[in-house]
């Protein structure tokens, strides 16, 4: 599309993206966003009428809403042409709701996920795993012990058929309605795949539930929808990993995540995203947290051309708690705009936001956050900490921590640091035997340690190695 794109193709820091499979799709929607395309998607999925209606309503809203262009310092979206994006590709898999045995998958898809380490990860203490290839979940497996307790972990399309009452009530109604923003509306019209998690009252799912999303075709959009319902007193940890290979034209990832945290329930949502550098990553993630509940967002945002991602939590019930931990890495030509939003709508609610970002080779990271404490939410407290680390004078980092405090009896703390990687620190490590690259990698690994220690070990290792890959070749 442009010369900048050609340049991106040549970066050698993306070795892991280089394997890409020939597309072998069963159904492809074609480019663009019309009523016909939306009807085709719904029809291909054999959806009930009510879901088609919701899609069409979203489409209407999408056309009526403007692209966000007036945010201060927001990423440039002018190169993103949604009419050029292919919103729906169904891979050629026999079983519609995905295989539950790894060996039933077509070889090329098996191979892709093998290379990403999915079966490996599954063997290591996971309650369940799902894998999405293009628009559809191709593999889903849940350990029996959890199924017996009434835990549901299936793909979103299956949930529409098998659990219509829950989906009707919770799907893009009270948490993320299509009217929320233009990309939420787009998502509502063309969503496909994603996970549905239901945890009954007082059930603790001890091991994490994992989903992996892979975009393999050029110029496509991935719009998976994840809906998590944790009933009173329950507990679950959901992890998602995302990646896409490199291609010449732009891809779009616009996922939607809705989490319902019941009274005294506890949900952790962890993401490690590693999109190729032609992907626009524009998501809407939100949780509603009832009395005494706890919501935790842990996100690692790597890759992509531009990311706009601000997971939000509405602390609706008294004593509800929110924790946000985010890390962002921007290299050459990348604009990573991430942050957090928390709405304190009840007394004695508590939030902590910890954000770390790294920018190098002219990359840009921005923390954009909002903490809203409503009138009457007395005894609430919030603590926001943003740290940015820069490699050079070409890279930039901004912090925009908006606070709207309408209640006086609250405790508000905010801290922000922006620093360049210290030459003396690098020299110290070098004098002990580490070369320049390793010294910088160690400093970065230490910088993000508070975040990696929250992640399960495989993901911590993954995140560290992704950062190593990002840093290789471009230093020195």
């Amino acid at each position: 599309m442009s010369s900048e794109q050609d340049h991106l193709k040549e970066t050698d820091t993306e070795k892991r993206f280089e394997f890409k499979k020939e597309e072998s799709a069963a159904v492809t929607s074609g480019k663009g966003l019309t009523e016909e395309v939306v009807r085709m998607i719904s029809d291909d999925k054999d959806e009930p009428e009510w879901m088609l209606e919701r899609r069409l309503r979203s489409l209407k809203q999408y056309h009526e809403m403007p692209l966000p262009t007036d945010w201060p310092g927001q990423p440039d979206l002018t190169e993103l042409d949604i009419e050029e994006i292919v919103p729906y590709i169904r891979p050629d898999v026999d079983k519609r709701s995905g295989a539950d045995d790894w060996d039933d998958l077509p070889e090329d898809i098996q191979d892709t996920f093998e290379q990403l380490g999915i079966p490996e990860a599954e063997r290591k203490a996971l309650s369940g795993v799902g894998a999405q290839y293009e628009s559809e979940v191709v593999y889903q497996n849940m350990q029996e012990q959890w199924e017996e307790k009434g835990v549901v972990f299936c793909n979103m399309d299956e949930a529409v058929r098998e659990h219509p009452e829950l989906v009707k009530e919770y799907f893009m109604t009270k948490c993320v309605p299509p009217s929320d923003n233009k990309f939420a509306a787009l998502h509502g019209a063309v969503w496909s795949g994603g996970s549905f998690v239901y945890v009954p009252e007082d059930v603790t799912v001890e091991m994490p539930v994992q989903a992996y999303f892979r975009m393999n075709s050029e110029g496509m959009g991935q719009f998976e929808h994840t809906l998590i319902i944790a009933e009173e007193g329950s507990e679950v940890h959901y992890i998602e990993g995302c990646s896409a290979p490199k291609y010449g034209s732009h891809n779009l990832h616009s996922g939607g995540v809705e989490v319902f945290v019941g009274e005294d329930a506890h949900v952790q949502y962890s993401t490690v995203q590693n999109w190729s550098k032609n992907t626009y990553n524009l998501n809407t993630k939100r949780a509603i947290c009832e009395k005494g509940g706890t919501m935790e967002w842990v996100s690692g945002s790597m890759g992509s051309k531009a990311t706009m991602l601000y997971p939000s939590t509405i602390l609706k019930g008294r004593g509800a708690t929110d924790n946000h931990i985010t890390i962002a890495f921007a290299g050459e030509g990348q604009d990573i705009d991430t942050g957090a939003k928390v709405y304190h709508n009840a007394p004695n609610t508590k939030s902590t936001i910890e954000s770390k970002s790294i920018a190098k080779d002219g990359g840009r990271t921005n923390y954009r956050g909002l903490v809203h404490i409503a009138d009457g939410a007395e005894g609430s407290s919030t603590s926001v900490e943003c740290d940015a680390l820069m490699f050079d004078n070409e890279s930039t980092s901004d912090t925009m921590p908006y606070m709207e405090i309408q209640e006086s009896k609250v405790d508000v703390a905010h801290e922000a640091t922006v620093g360049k990687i210290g030459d003396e620190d690098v020299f110290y490590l070098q004098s002990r035997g580490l070369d320049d690259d390793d010294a910088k990698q160690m400093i970065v690994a230490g910088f993000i340690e508070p975040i990696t220690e929250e992640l399960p070990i495989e993901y911590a290792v993954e995140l560290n190695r992704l950062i190593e890959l990002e840093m290789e070749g471009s230093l020195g």
Partner: protein
Amino acid sequence: MATLELNNLHAEVAEEGVDEQILDGVDLEVKSGEIHALMGPNGSGKSTTAKVIAGHPAYEVTEGEVLLHLEDGDFGGAFEIPEDKRTWDLLDLEPNERAALGVFLGFQYPAEIEGVTMTNFLRTALNAKLEEREELFEDEDEHEEEEEEAGYDTSPMEGPADEGEVGVAEFQQILSEKMEQLDMDEKFAQRYLNAGFSGGEKKQNEVLQAAILEPEVAVLDEIDSGLDIDRLQDVSKGINALRDEQGTGILQITHYQRILDYVEPDHVHVMLDGKVAKSGGAELAEKLEDNGYDWVREEFYETA
């Protein structure tokens, strides 16, 4: 037996527009197993000498050389040092390569690295040093082949591919032994590198690092500043152990006689205006303690 040799070393601040000569012809020789004290007034070039030896990028060497002479067996009996690779001009090498050859700098103000545990850092450093050493001594051709093989072939989710020469369990053992010798609390192993350490703990940590990395020559820059008497004794014990157990040569920069009561120097040197103005035995340090530096200055400029 290794020898660190500084010949006519001149250095200035490596910044454009700054034309300040800091080292003005330093000559010095430190052999394995010897303890040297480097003294002198503030601004005489002691710390700069230390940093230039280690390869600090803030200084530019304008004249002279820093040589390291090695002998076969210096890196243990199994490591063969060929004849044509026994003398190294350190000024041609990166700081980490100098470390790999056995040069250690104990910092006056050690860096604080958040999020990196002592254990992780020290094991990484030890393995990096051993690996770099292999590379420095292997034939050029072999090296090229290895470069070609380097690639990315496993998934990151399969865990770390290479543990390094010294594994986790083996390293834990080494670390606990050395920490016990220095009377350091075991908890240090899991703390972040120097982060929140007291001045004394940082200095103790510098000596611990030297004990683990087993250098041929250790340059210790004001290791005694900010130490209370108990810690001074621990640190001194550590320095003596470096010399007695590992045969490390020590170049100790200090302002005070105090530490020399515990770490007795074989040689004492006085720096003035970027040169070594006077050298002598342990008695020289005592004389300086009593009479200051003025007499050295007078004597030096009279004879010069």
